[in-house]
């Protein structure tokens, strides 16, 4: 299965399948089968989405 990156309108970036994720410290994160990455910049658990976007009213294509 080809890996997929999908943008959720007003929400996170959804990664499905095999990706190598490298965090802001340069550390390789074990990539999950499905990961949601924060696009709003306000997650308390970056780089992952923690739902904060729905509280801030983040709007993003």
């Amino acid at each position, binding site marked *: 299965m080809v890996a*997929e990156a999908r943008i959720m309108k007003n929400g996170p970036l959804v990664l499905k399948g095999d990706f190598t994720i490298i965090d802001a410290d340069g550390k390789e994160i074990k990539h999950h089968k499905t990961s949601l990455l924060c*696009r709003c910049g306000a997650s308390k658990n970056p780089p992952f989405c923690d739902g904060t976007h729905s509280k801030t009213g983040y709007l993003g294509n």
Partner: protein
Amino acid sequence: MEIENKSGVKTPEVKILKDGPIILKGFFRFRTSSGEETEKEHEILLCGCGKSGNKPYCDETHKKNVIKS
């Protein structure tokens, strides 16, 4: 199970820059929020700060720290 990718091809990479973009690089299917899909080699910078004027793409707004009143 057969590995989907041709031998020697790396898995696509997602690199997160602190207070900056999310860089997607490699072969994968990219689907926008409007439903457009492209399956190919990509190198995409996505906004990770939430402030781009051109979402989902980075437009370097993250480099601007000053909020003008």
